[in-house]
């Protein structure tokens, strides 16, 4: 791109940024103070942390659809992945990484459990716990201890869909009683913990799957790794 055109683009971007900043500063204050509304209803939500209360109680159907979107994304990847590319044998990892993974992965699983439990009363919750689980799976794969997924087995498929199915069945049962995802206040805490536990496992598997399905590739020719080992 030549200089005048580049200057024009930069100038346009700066002008756009200025207009956007002016528009944001010009916005009127929100008509409804949602923080006060959430704080007022927090005692009936079954959890003590406002973010979890919003995610899984007040706006539970948003979270339900979010999980469905993630599941669909993974299904799409599985659908386009070539079935004939069998899972290659995990590459020989260096011993440092193997040692690190055997120390770190149990701690990561513990941290995921803590995040899941902590979600009820402080920052944490199913998404963060699932991400930590997925990171543990990625670490295991990089250390050569977990093969990439060729084609998910029946158990794995159940695990992938399980969190969404738990969430959906709770929603369906509650729908039969009147409204979608309106928990009875006395059981709200238990139901939210049940849903979050299912979601943690499934989100961990789904996020790990986004990595482990992509990680499948034809076995690389022994080019880089072998030479490093010799020298």
């Amino acid at each position, binding site marked *: 791109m030549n200089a005048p055109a580049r200057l024009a683009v930069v100038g346009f971007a700066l002008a756009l940024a200025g207009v956007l900043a002016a528009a944001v500063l010009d916005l009127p204050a929100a008509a409804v103070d949602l923080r006060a509304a959430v704080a007022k209803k927090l005692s009936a939500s079954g959890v003590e942390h406002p*973010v979890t209360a919003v995610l899984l109680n007040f706006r539970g159907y948003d979270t339900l659809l979010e999980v469905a979107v993630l599941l669909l994304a993974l299904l799409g990847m599985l659908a386009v992945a070539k079935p004939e590319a069998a899972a290659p044998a995990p590459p020989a990892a260096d011993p440092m990484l193997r040692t690190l993974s055997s120390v770190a992965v149990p701690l990561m699983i513990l941290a995921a459990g803590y*995040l899941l439990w902590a979600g009820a009363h402080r*920052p*944490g*919750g199913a*998404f*963060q716990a699932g*991400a*930590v689980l*997925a*990171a543990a799976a*990625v670490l295991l794969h*990089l250390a050569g201890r977990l093969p990439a997924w060729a084609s998910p087995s029946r158990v794995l498929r159940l695990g992938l869909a399980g969190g969404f199915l738990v969430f959906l069945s709770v929603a369906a049962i509650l729908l039969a009683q009147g409204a979608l995802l309106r928990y009875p206040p006395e059981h709200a805490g238990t139901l939210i913990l049940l849903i979050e536990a299912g979601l943690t496992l499934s989100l961990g598997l789904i*996020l790990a799957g*986004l*990595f482990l399905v*992509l*990680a499948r*590739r034809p076995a*690389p*020719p022994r*080019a*880089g790794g072998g030479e490093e080992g010799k020298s």
Partner: protein
Amino acid sequence: MSLAFDVLLALALLWSAWRSLATPDLTRAVVMFIVFGLLMALAWARLDAPDIALAEAAIGAGLTGALLLDALGAFGERRGRDGP
């Protein structure tokens, strides 16, 4: 003190975002993207949004960074196999 930290954080965010977009070396771009994600998590923590900070650090910096590095590795491998 905290104002100085915030200004430094904002500058570092802009710098890492610019570096990750502008650098011609893809590996460096991915590393700068991970740095940007970690700084962004700090920024969310400074904005009193620890939930988003956790999610950003785990998903934005960690998993996305790992995916990008893996994609980079796959491309490099293919390029190395097909041609010089």
